[in-house]
């Protein structure tokens, strides 16, 4: 498997004049390293505010440069993205890396027909004229399992259901057969019943096109388990990564354990859902010790002194926890 994406020491911070008292800089991503092979799928898991979206938007260079500082290296197929001009980036976006957003209801243009928006992406990426782009788009509609494609093709976004729109959005994002698809919580805004269908559509399309996937999610269960590898983010850092099934079965970081423990599962009817006590640390400050220490049930003195580095714990498993070796944490079967 060749290396498609390599991220080293990525940091993203936003200027936030409203919080001048706390330094005025929100440090959303605090140094992450990540490698993704072509065709590989990776789940980026974490709670709201953990920096997942800020990190993936940095890959596409979608941050507003006047309010955001991005540092570190992001190389796509060996080419450093930060060195590229905005025009070169326009050629990368959509063609090499593409993105599906959380809320399909607002990510499509409300006043243009859905079919035309799919056709637009097709025509741009394949250099087709309007008529043949429409024909291709219509085929894609049918292939994506959109019922009565001809009728829906001429409809506007508000006439679609969320699930159908997300299908269209996936078609648009994959129109140019990109090497990497970033799906930012693609099922969060949708009914649970269509969640699986959307994930399956992404999986099917991606296999067909040979596209790698970064799936951003806060769902450790249904969503994450469909990927090959997973990385858990907490307070702007990756705290654990490894093969998804291994990570789910036996987490090495107490935070991962907490996330897994918080999942509702059959046979626990009547019991209160578990939560992780406390709050994520402020994005404006940096405490000296492990960011998770204040909420960790296994916390000990060294945890408060030094930030643990992400180190290899077993083959293909990395974890950032001082006590990873001694702890025996519980996962889900």
């Amino acid at each position, binding site marked *: 498997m060749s290396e498609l994406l390599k991220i080293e020491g990525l940091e993203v911070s936003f200027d936030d004049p409203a919080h001048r008292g706390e330094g005025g800089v929100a440090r959303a991503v605090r140094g992450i390293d990540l490698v993704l092979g072509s065709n590989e799928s990776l789940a980026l898991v974490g709670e709201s505010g953990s920096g997942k979206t800020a990190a993936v938007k940095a890959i*596409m260079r*979608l941050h507003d440069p*006047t309010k955001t500082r991005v540092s570190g290296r992001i190389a796509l197929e060996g080419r450093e993205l930060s060195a590229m001009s905005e025009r070169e*980036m*326009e*050629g*990368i*976006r*959509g*063609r090499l890396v*593409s*993105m599906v*957003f959380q*809320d399909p209801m*607002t*990510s*499509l*243009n*409300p*006043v*243009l027909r859905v079919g035309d928006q799919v056709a*637009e*992406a097709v025509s*741009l990426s394949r250099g087709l004229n309007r008529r043949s782009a429409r024909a291709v788009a219509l085929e894609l509609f049918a292939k994506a399992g959109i019922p009565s494609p001809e009728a829906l093709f001429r409809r*506007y976004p508000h*006439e679609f259901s969320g699930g159908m729109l997300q299908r269209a*959005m996936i078609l*648009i*994002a994959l129109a*140019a057969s990109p090497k990497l698809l970033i799906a930012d919580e693609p099922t969060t805004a949708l009914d649970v019943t269509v969640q699986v269908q959307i994930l399956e559509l992404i999986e099917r399309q991606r296999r067909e096109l040979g596209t790698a996937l970064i799936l951003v999610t806060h769902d450790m269960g249904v969503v994450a388990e469909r990927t090959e590898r997973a990385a858990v983010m907490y307070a702007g850092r990756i705290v654990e990564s490894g093969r998804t099934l291994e990570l789910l079965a036996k987490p090495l970081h107490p935070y991962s354990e907490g996330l897994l423990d918080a999942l509702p599962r059959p046979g626990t009817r009547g019991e209160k859902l578990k939560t992780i006590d406390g709050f994520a640390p402020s994005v404006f400050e940096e405490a000296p010790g492990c960011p998770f220490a204040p909420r960790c049930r296994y916390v000990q003195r060294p945890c408060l002194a030094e930030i643990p580095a992400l180190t290899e714990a077993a083959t293909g498993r990395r974890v950032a926890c001082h006590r990873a070796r001694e702890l025996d944490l519980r996962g889900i079967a």
Partner: protein
Amino acid sequence: MRRRGSMAAMAGPATIVAGILISAIVLVSIFAPIAAPYDPDREELSSSLAPPSSAHLLGTDRLGRDLASRLAYGGRTTLLSALLVVAISTAVGTALGLVAGYRGGWVDSLLSRAFDVLLAFPALLLALVVAAAFGRGIENAIASLSVVYVPMITRLVRSACLVERKLPYVEAGRALGYSSARIMFRHILPNVAPLLLVQVAIDFGYSILDLAAMSFLGLGVQPPVSDWGAMLADARDSLLVAPRLALAPGLAIMIVVVSFNLFGDGLKESFERRRRR
């Protein structure tokens, strides 16, 4: 579900009346050669200042020219000039507004400050200064009014664009590698269009008024061409003898301007009602 014709149903009776009046006047102007009973420039001194009769529906002016025919042809000039003013200022203003709103930064600051200065002057005064500098004539009147109408359109489009560019569909477009120009003109513009349309309707009315004022002052159309403003100016000489010569173009101007205003307001209201649903 989209309902066709809901626009007309939602518009008030005033809007519908205004729409009918506008259409009637536009039709008469377009078909002036057919609608007008006489050549508007044919002088017939023997029937100078003739009162309304079956031969001359609105009577004749001092040179014996048929007033009804002159009104129809004058409307042609007036409406066409106003159309040009609105078309030019809207095209330029929209482009600048989109760029300022979407790009932001120094481009926005520069345009906004420059237009703040322009907006500080009364529109007509500014147009008069421009026309005085470049000479009289309808082309210069149109050009100067076009310039004067740009800032308002730019401001409107810019503020709407500022709202739009924060919406997820714009970011999604960027994530697909769409160029700024494509996002601005193909994606943001249609979303701004309803607002723009309202402003265009209202501007149309005002530009007729301003053009008439310029022609009245002799800075607009030059003889033998005439428009409603020039007709008003001509009528001054015989105001006491034949007030209808001034009343006819004056009323025409008033009706068109009020109609466009009502129509613009009606459009705005129905767009807002639609948005709220």
